[in-house]
């Protein structure tokens, strides 16, 4: 009987070893896929540029487009969380990660560049986590991401009217988020507490 026990243990160890190796392979594939996405995304960004080529203020235009894209991706993510749609939120997180990674800060002042780089670095991490987490964890990162996006908007400015909204029920002192509409749709609780929250501030 003892022998059987020892053998079973060894098999378990070997299987564990193999699992670790196969996990590694999977991860490499994911990274390659991610690379492709970002290339595709880049092309999309170029289309945007061409479309608006009539505008002579190309530099500030690109700058606006980038900030606008961040907000668009952020709103897609927020809406996915309102709907408690984990898959859609993960996709939006991935998209936001790509947008942030291709964000070019060179048209800003030196001081703004430093600040923006810090924001982008941290926000990218949150977006990346959102792209591969369960919905509870996605919301935790969304809470932190909101701070970064809010600070980013303070630097880049925005054409849209944004509503900074806040639900005191969420963990860690309450959860804030940005929305394009005044009406409260809670991304931290979804249908459980859809109306929880208040408009704290209007931006623009």
């Amino acid at each position, binding site marked *: 009987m003892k*022998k*059987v026990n*020892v*053998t079973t243990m*060894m*098999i378990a*160890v*070997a299987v*564990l*070893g193999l699992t*670790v*190796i196969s*996990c*590694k392979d999977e991860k490499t594939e994911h990274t390659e896929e991610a690379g492709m996405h970002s290339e595709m995304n880049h092309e999309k960004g170029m289309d945007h540029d061409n479309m608006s080529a009539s505008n002579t203020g190309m530099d500030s235009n690109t700058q606006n487009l980038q900030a606008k894209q961040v907000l668009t991706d952020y709103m897609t993510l927020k809406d996915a969380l309102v709907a408690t749609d984990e898959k859609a939120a993960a996709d939006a997180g991935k998209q936001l990660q790509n947008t942030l990674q291709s964000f070019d800060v060179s048209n800003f002042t030196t001081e703004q560049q430093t600040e923006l780089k*810090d*924001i982008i*670095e*941290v926000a990218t*991490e*949150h977006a990346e986590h959102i792209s591969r987490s369960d919905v509870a964890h996605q919301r*935790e990162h969304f809470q*932190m991401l909101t701070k*970064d996006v809010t600070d980013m908007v303070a630097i880049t400015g925005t054409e849209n009217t944004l509503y900074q909204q806040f639900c005191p029920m969420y963990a*860690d002192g309450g959860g804030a988020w940005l929305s394009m509409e005044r009406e409260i749709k809670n991304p931290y609780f979804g249908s459980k507490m859809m109306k929880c929250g208040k408009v704290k501030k209007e931006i623009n």
Partner: protein
Amino acid sequence: MKILKIIAPILLVALLGIQFIPTTRNQSEFVPKTDFIKVNNTPDNIGKLLQVACYDCHSNNTAYPWYNKVQPVAWFLEDHIKEGKKELNFSEWDDYSSRRKNSKLKSIIRQIEDNEMPLFSYTLIHRDAGFSDVEKAEVIEYMKWLKDSLQ
């Protein structure tokens, strides 16, 4: 039973064989200036807890007891070290921007509160790496204090 008698020696040989595959060691000679414990002057009791429970995967210096050198445990650990350092590297703490520090501290607190860290699979092998309830509370309290003091 017969099958086991045939398989067992094969596995044993395989297990011995994989011991000779070289791995990269995550070790450094000195504690860098940017080290979390050094920079923050972390109290000894908290610092020790962090070193035992976190530093193996979240710093440039892994303590390697014998079982961490044995395959496939070493592979398992190597993978976690790579991942772990990407997420949070206590050795490079002071290179982080204050925004990033703040974000990391929030995540540290949450991960420990939710019992997601230290990883269960890690404390399973590394029995002394798990926090007791008291230790857990102490580490969280310290991290919260540090986060507030940085703001």
